[in-house]
């Protein structure tokens, strides 16, 4: 007996909370992926990253409404179209943001913080004006509803779906990073920006593409987010702090570190939430992260090479 639960119960609780944690993990990974590649590439912390996610969520919402009204027969497929639209719209806005705002501020990291924070406020107000202040939710297609039962444990199909999606996107980003020309250039710029220019890499162009891609991934995270939370103009704010935590904890330049760190944080949060209140869970998670960061200030994963 522990906390008044039998060990059998405790096992089920752990698995079920663990699963709930996995959906949170998915959103964290997608958000952190975008934030981390942008931060790694150009040292810019995108304070509006949560709003790019919510933009993706609204796109998904619009898309589901459009399908319901005009193409009810194809409703089962709307989510895939929505993801593509969310990626393109958030990515395009990201490209525009880089061109209009960020590229003028590269020499001034603190100003990029302020500027993107300002952008996040503008975007929130734009959402409020366009979509209204009330929360909106999307209708799930029927094949995504319901759950599968494994013994005494129920898992929701949409949760499984979101996780599969996350795996695929992470895999694609990893492939791009380690197999594509773009990835080669990103890794070079991250290692040594000046020298990258001197070997012929157009670092500014890579910055723009990277910022766009990072925002696009946030948009897809927004699509996933519609399945587990309701969309409102300021919902992105709730996730941005946790995502920072994930990035810093993982070591900003390691994909694997980001994933491991998202896993640790989402799991400890969701497991602890069962036993204590939400805010206690958050405090404990923070304490764990701080403790681990004191032991490993460079984050969980760092590549070792000689200097």
């Amino acid at each position, binding site marked *: 007996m522990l906390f008044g639960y039998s060990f059998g119960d405790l096992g089920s609780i752990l698995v079920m909370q663990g699963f709930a944690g996995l959906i949170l993990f998915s959103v964290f990974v997608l958000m952190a992926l975008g934030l981390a590649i942008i931060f790694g590439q150009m040292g810019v912390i995108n304070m509006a990253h949560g709003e790019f996610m919510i933009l993706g969520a609204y796109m998904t919402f619009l898309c589901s409404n459009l399908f319901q009204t005009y193409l009810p027969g194809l409703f089962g497929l709307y989510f895939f179209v929505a993801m593509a639209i969310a990626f393109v719209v958030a990515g395009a806005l990201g490209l525009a943001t880089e061109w209009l705002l960020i590229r003028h501020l590269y020499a001034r990291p603190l100003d990029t913080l302020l500027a993107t924070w300002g952008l996040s406020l503008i975007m929130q107000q734009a959402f409020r004006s366009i979509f209204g202040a009330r929360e909106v939710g999307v209708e799930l297609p029927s094949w995504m509803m319901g759950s599968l039962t494994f013994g005494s444990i129920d898992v929701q199909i949409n949760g499984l779906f979101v996780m599969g999606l996350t795996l695929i996107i992470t895999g694609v980003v990893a492939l791009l990073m380690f197999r594509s*020309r773009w990835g*080669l*250039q990103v*890794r*070079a710029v991250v*290692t*040594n920006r*000046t*020298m*990258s*220019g*001197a*070997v*012929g*890499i*157009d*670092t*500014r162009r890579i910055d723009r593409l990277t910022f766009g891609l990072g925002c696009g991934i946030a948009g897809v995270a927004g699509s996933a987010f519609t399945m587990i939370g309701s969309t409102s103009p300021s919902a992105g704010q709730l996730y941005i702090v946790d995502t920072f935590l994930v990035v810093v904890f993982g070591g900003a330049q390691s994909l694997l570190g980001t994933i491991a760190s998202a896993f640790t944080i989402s799991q400890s949060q969701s497991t602890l939430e069962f036993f204590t209140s939400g805010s206690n869970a958050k405090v404990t998670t923070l304490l764990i992260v701080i403790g681990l960061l004191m032991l490993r200030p460079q984050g969980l994963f760092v*590549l070792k*090479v*000689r*200097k």
Partner: protein
Amino acid sequence: MFNVRGLNVAYGQSQVLHGIDMSVAQGEIVAVVGRNGMGKSTLMKSLIGVLPSRAGEISVEGIDVAGMPSHARVKRGLAYVPQGRQIFGTMTVRENIETGLVVTGKSDIPDEIYSLFPILAEFDKRRGGNLSGGQQQQLAIARALASDPKILLLDEPTEGIQPSIIKDIAVVLKEIRQLRNLTIVVCEQVLSFVLDVADRILVMENGRIVHQDQRKNVDEAAIAAYLAV
């Protein structure tokens, strides 16, 4: 084919290069010698564009590149091997060379590069940062050659390298010049290396070219005197 006119470069208030003039013919190897802190690296950095110039003209085949960002200069035919090599330590040897390839739009590393530096073919998958200093130097040269340059800028390629490898590097430089009719500008302090590779020698002192001569006319003792502290 490569001309520099009245190049002025400063770090903040302190001017380091005072009106450098030089012109280099196609296929020529020019060595710039000078003691520590005389401005050799500053010259190289401003030629490739990682350091802005205050005034002056840098032209490649008649086109002034002085206002261009460095990647555009690489596209025009300049390539740079920095002092201290600065290879991308966490990336593999192959990936390091591929970064030079980006500007050409090609996707395969020419065999020629591996035949110039067989050691790189052997260590293809190893991280650049785990190579020895001499191997890193070869990698830095290979990376620069991958962009298919017309003019190769080398900043102290012999620094911290044992005499036998220094000889190898000299052989390779002359070989590439032969192979591609490449123009080479190299900054150096090791006199034996300079006398071995250069067609012409310029002496730099306090940001000015104070003396220059063809290799065949050069008075070794006079150059040595400029290098002595």
